[in-house]
């Protein structure tokens, strides 16, 4: 009897765990079924090579590159800002700051990631853009620069926290070797610790990129809704995520081509983040084995 009860419980717990597999399968099925229906009407060649994205107009074009360029541009700006700052923070905290400081500052920094992104969007639109406009006269009201920078602020803790963990995990004997040779803390950090912790740092950067690519509200609010193939950070663009929001806010018939565009856009986004997450998972596994 007791055995039977134990088995039932185990099966129940297992079923709960399997829900996570169902979620993944569900996401992949939903995205691919709608995307396949989409590609029945739009050639995949056009999708990948067209340089315009106008599904909501009468002259329809479906060049995903246009949206992708918006996503990559805003993410690039965020990363260019967040990685040097985040990495500097991690080095400062793990090598320079007193131990007690580390304990208080890490949760404080993580607060940056806890702020809802719609709030950051408001920040970008109403504070950062007007501020930047005072010395970049041509800056449009919607632009990828302030959206990217604010997104950068949001992802700082992703970079700093994981990188700091990686630096912290480097054996102390290497620090002693470097100091024993007369290194300054800076030389120790950049010549010894950062290379030794490189896999962990790379993981943190990949996760930050993945986060930036999938970020929605900041770019939907502050970067605009004008699909445009450009690398100019001062003009409005539209990201994949912002497009999905734009369509969702409107009245689009289920089963229409417009409806399916958001799944085609979604699967593109999913593939990118999936690849990034998989790579980071692989590196992390290897890295864990290295130190244990």
């Amino acid at each position, binding site marked *: 009897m007791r055995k039977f009860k134990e088995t039932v419980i185990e099966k129940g717990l297992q079923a709960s*765990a399997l829900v996570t597999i169902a979620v993944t399968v569900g996401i992949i099925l939903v995205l691919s079924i709608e995307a396949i229906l989409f590609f029945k009407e739009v050639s995949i060649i056009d999708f990948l090579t067209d340089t315009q994205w106008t599904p909501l107009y009468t002259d329809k074009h479906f060049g995903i590159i246009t949206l992708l360029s918006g996503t990559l541009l805003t993410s690039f700006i965020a990363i260019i800002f967040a990685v040097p700052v985040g990495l*500097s923070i991690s080095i400062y905290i793990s090598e320079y700051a007193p131990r007690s400081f580390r304990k208080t500052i890490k949760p404080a920094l993580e607060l940056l990631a*806890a702020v809802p992104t*719609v709030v950051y969007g408001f920040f970008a639109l109403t*504070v950062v853009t007007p501020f930047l406009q005072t010395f970049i006269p041509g800056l449009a009201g919607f632009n990828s620069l302030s959206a990217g920078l604010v997104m950068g*602020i949001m992802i700082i803790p992703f970079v700093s926290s994981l990188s700091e963990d990686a630096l912290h995990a480097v054996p102390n004997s290497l620090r002693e070797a470097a100091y024993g040779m007369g290194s300054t803390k800076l030389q120790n950090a950049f010549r010894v610790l950062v290379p030794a912790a490189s896999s962990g740092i790379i993981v943190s950067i990949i996760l930050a990129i993945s986060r930036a690519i999938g970020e929605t509200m900041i770019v939907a609010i502050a970067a605009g809704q004008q699909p445009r193939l450009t690398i100019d950070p001062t003009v409005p663009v539209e990201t994949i995520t912002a497009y*999905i*929001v734009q369509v969702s806010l409107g009245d689009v018939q289920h089963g229409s081509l417009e409806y399916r565009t958001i799944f085609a856009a979604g699967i593109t986004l999913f593939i990118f983040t*999936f690849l990034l997450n998989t790579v980071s998972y692989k590196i992390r596994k290897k890295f864990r084995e290295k130190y244990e």
Partner: protein
Amino acid sequence: MNNIRKNRIKDQVFKFWGIACTFLGLILLMIFIGSIIVDGVQRIDWSFITSLPSRKAERAGIYTALMGSVWILIFTTIIALPLGIAAAIYLEEYAKESKLASLLEVNISNLAGVPSIIYGLLGLEVFVRIMEMGASVLAGSFTLALLILPIVIVSTRESIKAVPKSIRDASFALGASKWQTVSQQLLPASFGGILTGIILALSRAVGETAPLIVIGALAYVPFAPESPMDEFSVLPIQIFNWISRPQHGFETNAAAAIIVLLLITFIMNGIAVYFRNRWQSKLK
């Protein structure tokens, strides 16, 4: 000698750079919160909280959105909590080292990295359309529950892992079964940690906007939900809607609503940190 002096100077320069970077984000956040408070605080009063939405900025309130957020939070908790805890127990105590366990592990790590808007697409197709829930509180809660599931699982596992092995051994040695050990020893001992993780996950859910927009949650809902099948709005969507309007009065409303949303988020984070500290000192 000269070079060594130069290296020292570089070292000091980097130190100050590091301090500057560390405080940069926090200072920007404070500037921003400060500016929002200046913009919005005079707008906050009892009627702002208890008024229904309106086309006139001065008359509009956040009542329906706030109630929507509360409903969503309750149902998200009801769905995600048992699922997440059960899955974590399975992974931590039952499935160790098996092939299925490593598959589940990769999978959960991947799910944690899936952009939230993708969960919106899943919810739109599965809950709103196929299961015919429409853009209801229930559909929104299911969507957000799946979204925070990986966070709940990961933090629950860590809390269970933190329970000293001796407790496990003692329980087994007394002849307790696995489930008895889990339910009578491990869960009570890791309760504080689990609670922390769940509050943090919920604070994430309360700020989510994109997936709920995708499933069709509305910015304008005349009444607060009265059943899980009702339409709803939530605070972040209300904020987004106000931000998108050109009239200045709505920007003030947005700032005021942001103050409320941030208050909720920070209070939840504060409670979580409090529980974590209390739990960690108890565990030692």
